[in-house]
């Protein structure tokens, strides 16, 4: 169990490999002073009951980039996202989002958030769902048409959300998150259940948004998605076990695919941290 005891602190570098080559710790570029970070996490811990679901996560998330939040299910990805949206209870440590403490009223509407289960009103049509969120955000009708087009739901505008397939509901939820072009977009598993073509298109779109200046944090448990990210955070059992670019991940592990690299890092961490 992690404690505040000095020996636990000294054991940490072994567990957290951050953009290192041949085991030599090197600060990631987002952690260096002067590099613009949209989100700064410092010693973030989250408890749920007796379990610590996030254990001392420290990382900076680069502005204007796509950061992938990857890890097996149950590793704490959703909890980390909820913590920086300010809807998670029992968060300790420091979470600064766009220069404000997480959950600050000034941040409401500036973060596009896709929840893991699609948060749509099943008894409203696609268009009515978007119209409601657009009114709350004070966003016009052009924006609705634009995001509908983006997620490929244009033809479904007048269909009830409850009648859509699971993947379509996720896309509708994604569309509501993209309304009003928020500067920060937090997406919890946006590409689950989508076909390969749509998946590729969406990742390309995320890249476009980032080049337009938006910051994206996108979670996934599919390692192939890592290739589409500028930056990667790897979580396992509530710990940040890697923070670096996809190239660094491949270089460090010597693996040829992201999946293999991820497995190697996880296995390495497992043997490195003993019985933990």
């Amino acid at each position: 169990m992690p404690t505040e005891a000095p020996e636990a602190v000294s054991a940490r570098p072994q567990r957290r490999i951050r953009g290192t080559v041949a085991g030599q710790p090197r600060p990631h570029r987002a952690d260096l002073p002067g590099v613009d970070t949209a989100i700064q996490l410092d010693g973030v811990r989250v408890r749920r009951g007796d379990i610590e679901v996030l254990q001392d996560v420290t990382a900076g998330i680069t502005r204007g980039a796509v950061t992938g939040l990857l890890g097996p299910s149950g590793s704490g990805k959703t909890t980390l996202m909820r913590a920086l949206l300010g809807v998670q209870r029992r968060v300790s440590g420091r979470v600064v989002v766009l220069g404000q403490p997480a959950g600050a009223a000034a941040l409401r509407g500036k973060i596009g958030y896709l929840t893991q289960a699609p948060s749509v009103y099943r008894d409203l049509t696609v268009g009515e769902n978007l119209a409601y969120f657009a009114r709350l955000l004070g966003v016009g009708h052009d924006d609705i048409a634009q995001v509908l087009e983006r997620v490929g739901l244009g033809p479904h505008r007048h269909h009830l959300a409850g009648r859509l397939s699971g993947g379509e509901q996720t896309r509708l939820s994604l569309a509501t998150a993209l309304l009003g072009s928020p500067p920060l977009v937090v997406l919890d598993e946006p590409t689950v259940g989508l076909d390969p073509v749509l998946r590729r298109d969406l990742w390309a779109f995320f890249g476009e948004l980032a080049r337009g200046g938006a910051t994206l944090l996108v979670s996934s448990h599919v390692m192939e998605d890592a290739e589409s990210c500028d930056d990667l955070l790897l979580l396992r059992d509530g710990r940040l076990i890697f923070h670096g670019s996809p190239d660094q991940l491949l270089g460090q592990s010597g693996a040829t695919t992201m999946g293999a690299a991820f497995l190697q890092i996880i296995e390495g961490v497992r043997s490195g941290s003993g019985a933990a």
Partner: protein
Amino acid sequence: MSRAAPATAVRVLGQLRHDPRTVGLIIVVPSGFLALLRYSLSGRLGTFQSVGAPLVGLFPLVMMFLVTSITMLRERTSGTLERLMTLPLSKLDLMTGYGIAFAIVAAAQGSVVAAVGFGLLGLHSDHGTALVIGLAVANAVVGTSLGLFVSAFARTEFQAVQFMPAFVFPQLLLCGLVVPRAQMAGALQVVARYLPLTYAFDALGRAARSTRLGSGMRTDLVAMTLTALVALFLGALTLPRRTA
């Protein structure tokens, strides 16, 4: 009031619009029940007048209480509430939006049941049916506020439904609808003085009787307004932005 409250009202009404069966039940059931009451009391029309007239205005309170608590609970459990909490929408906006939407539904419900009760079934009010309909709308707002507040204590829809017998039925019994309050045990009369439905019932009773409305009506209306405001405020308090 920001734009979020009317936007929420439009959204809630939109949800109801896509559920015509619920709307049908809300509109038709009270009239049906009133007719049933009328013919089961066919030999005692005086009793029908004293029970039926207040019922016209109590239906909206009871039904909106139930509909609201379930709609709000669904919002909590479906993840849409978590999403809303990250948007520029105050908790009071959300509550007010619900209140406006269900007040509009109650106006429709109250008008239909009043038209049936006063037009077809022989109820009469010397102060005019408009007053009864107005009170029905006010009661719906009270019911909506109470439902929003109570939904915080329910984890499942089954629990929310149980709040009807737990929270509303005792008030219906104690408000004087079934037995005049003066005939109840002393302790119950005292309890009844602190229950919102008592004032709703009294106001409707005054509207249906031929005597002058007087200051008692004012007391009743103040009590109903306070109930609605306090319940809305408490409802907003019990709506957590952060969850485990």
